[in-house]
C-alpha cells in the first residue's frame, strides 16, 4: 500500500505539472504577444529607416541639383538687384533729395517750355517732411502757368512717376487749384492758359 509521503510527492508532482503547464502557457502567450507587437514595431521602424535612407539620398541629390540651378541664376539676380538699387535711389531715394528734385523740375520745364506752348514754374516751396511708417513724404507747393497741353504733360509726368524704368521720383498730386484764362498768341490763335497751384507729395525712404 502506497505510503503518505509517496502520495504527497505524487500529488506535488501532478500540481507541478499543472503549474508548469499553466506557466508555460501564460509565458508562451506573453512571449508571443510581446514578440509579435515588438516585431511589428521593429518591422515598421525598419521600413521607416529604409525609406528615410532612400529619401535622404534623394534629398541630397535634389539639393545638389537645385543649388546648381540657383548658382546659374545667382549672377543675374545680383545684377538685377544692383540695377533696382541704382534706379531706386532716383525713384525712391533714401533722403528727401530736394536739390535733385528741383533740378528735375527745372529740366522738365526746360524741355516743355517754348514760345508756342507756355510752361513756367514760378514758385517751388518745400514744406516740412512728414514721416509715415514705411516711407517719408516731402510736400512741395508749386505755382505753374502753362498751356492746356503742357498742363496735361505735367499731370502725366507726375502720374507715371515712380517707375524704376522711368527713373522719375515717386510723386503724387495732393491738391490742385486750376484757374483758366484765354490768351491769344501773335498769330491770333487762342490758347487756353492754365494757372495752377499744385501741392505735390514727393516720396522717399
Amino acid at each position, binding site marked *: *500500500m*502506497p*505510503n503518505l*509521503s*509517496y502520495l504527497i*510527492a*505524487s500529488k506535488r*508532482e501532478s500540481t507541478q*505539472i499543472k503549474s*508548469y503547464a499553466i*506557466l*508555460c502557457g501564460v*509565458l*508562451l502567450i506573453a*512571449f508571443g504577444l*510581446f*514578440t509579435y507587437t*515588438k516585431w511589428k*514595431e*521593429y518591422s515598421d*521602424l*525598419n521600413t*521607416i*529607416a529604409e525609406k*528615410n*535612407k532612400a*529619401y*535622404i539620398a534623394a*534629398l541630397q541629390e535634389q*539639393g545638389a541639383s*537645385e543649388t546648381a540651378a*540657383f548658382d546659374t*541664376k545667382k549672377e543675374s*539676380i*545680383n545684377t*538685377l538687384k544692383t*540695377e*533696382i*538699387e541704382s534706379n531706386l535711389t532716383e525713384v*525712391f531715394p533714401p533722403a528727401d533729395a530736394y536739390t535733385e528734385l528741383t533740378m528735375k523740375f527745372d529740366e522738365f520745364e526746360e524741355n516743355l517750355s517754348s514760345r508756342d506752348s507756355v510752361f513756367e514754374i514760378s514758385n517751388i516751396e518745400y514744406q516740412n517732411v512728414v514721416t509715415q511708417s*514705411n*516711407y517719408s513724404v516731402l510736400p512741395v507747393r508749386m505755382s505753374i502757368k502753362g498751356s492746356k497741353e503742357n498742363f*496735361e504733360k505735367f*499731370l502725366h509726368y507726375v*502720374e*507715371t512717376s*515712380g*517707375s524704376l*524704368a522711368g527713373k522719375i521720383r*515717386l510723386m*503724387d*498730386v*495732393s*491738391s*490742385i*487749384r486750376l*484757374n*483758366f484764362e*484765354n490768351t491769344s498768341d501773335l498769330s491770333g490763335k487762342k490758347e*487756353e492758359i492754365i494757372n495752377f497751384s499744385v501741392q505735390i507729395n514727393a516720396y522717399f525712404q
Partner: protein
Amino acid sequence: MENSVTPKLVNPLDVSNEKKDSSSDILKNLTSSDAPQEKLLEEAPTIDFSLLKDVIPRQSLLLTVLKYGFTALAVAFLVSIVFFVVTLTDAFSFVSSRLGYTSLTSQIATDNTDIIALKTDLNFTRYLLLKGYLDEFGYYGDSFAQNYEILNTNTASATEKTAASEKIDSIKPELKKNFVAIKDIYSKEFVSAISTVDNADTKALFQQKLVDKFNAKAVALKDSTDPQAKRDYKNYMQIVALIPNTEIKSLVQSTDFDSLKDEDLYQLVNKINSIVVNDLNVIQQIKDKRIKWSDVINEINLATIGVDSYYDPDFYNDAGGIRYTSYDFDSESKKISINGETKIFGTTNFTTITKLIEELNKSALFENAEMRSFSKSGSLDDGYTASLRISLNLKDKK
C-alpha cells in the same frame, strides 16, 4: 505499488538445494544423506522495507519537459526583451554606443534630423530662387504697368502710346518666363513627412526651420558694410516675410498666365507687387493710393459734354454753354470744387446746371455732386449768365 509488498527473502543457494531435492527421486537417493545439511552461506540479509517509505516517485517525463520548456521560454522571452529594448529604445545606449550599434529609434531620430536639415537647405535655395524670380517679375511688371498706364491715359501723346504698346509686347515674354518659374517653384513640396511628427505640425516645423535659417544668415550680415552683404541681408529679411505669405502662393497657383489680357496682367502685377515684400512693395502701396487727376478732369469734361454737346471754351462767348474758371482738387479729403459759369441764349441756365449735377452723380468716379444756390443775370437778347459752383466727392476705390 508492487514494491510495497514484502516478499519472502531466501538465500539463493538454499533455494537451489531445495529444488534438487524435489527434482527426482533417483538423484534424491544418490545425494541423500542423513548428515545434517550444512549451509554454504549465511542467512540472507533482511531488508528494511520501511526505508522505502520515504522514496519519492520517479519524476515524470512530462514535468521534465515542462520545466525545460518553461526555462527555454523564459530565456527566449528575456532574449526577446533585451533584443527589442536594445533595438527599439535607447535604454542601453551607453553599451550599444560603445559597440558601435545604434538603435532603430536613434537611427530614425538621426535620419529625421538629417531630413529636416536637408529639406531646410533645399527650401532655402528654393526661396532664394523664388525671391529672385519675384523681384525680376516685379521689375518687369513695374515697367509693364507704367507702359500700360501710358497706353490708357488721356495725357499721353499718340507717339508715347505707340512706344508704350511696343514696350508692353516686348515685356510680356519676360513676365511670362518669370511667372512660370515662380509657379513651378510654388508647385514643389516644401514639407517632408517626418515619422516622429504629426502631419499637421510638419508644415509649421519646416516653416520655422526655414525662418530660423534665414534669420541666422541675416544676423551674420547685419553689421556688414559690404554692399553685397547689405543686399543679401535685405534680401534674407524680405524672404522671411515671404515665407508665411500664403496669399501670393494661392494667387500664383490659381492664375493661368496665358489666359490673361493686358488689363488682367496689369492687375496681377500690381497685386503681386503689393503683397510681396520687396523694394517695389512700398512704391506700389503709394501708387495704389494715388489719384489720377487727369482721369478726373477727363470725367468732368465727359459729364459736361453730356449736358453741353458743343462744350468748348473757345466757342463759349459766341455759342454759350458751360465754361469752367477753376477746379479745386484735394486728394486728402477727396473733395472737388468746380467753379464756372453757364451762358444760355434763353432762360434755362438752372436746368443746364442741374443736368450737369445729375450727370456728375451718374459717373462711376463721383458722388454727392451738389449746388444749393442758383443765380443768374442777363437778358434774352444778350443771353443769361449763371455762375456755377459745384462741390462733389471722389468715390472710394474698390
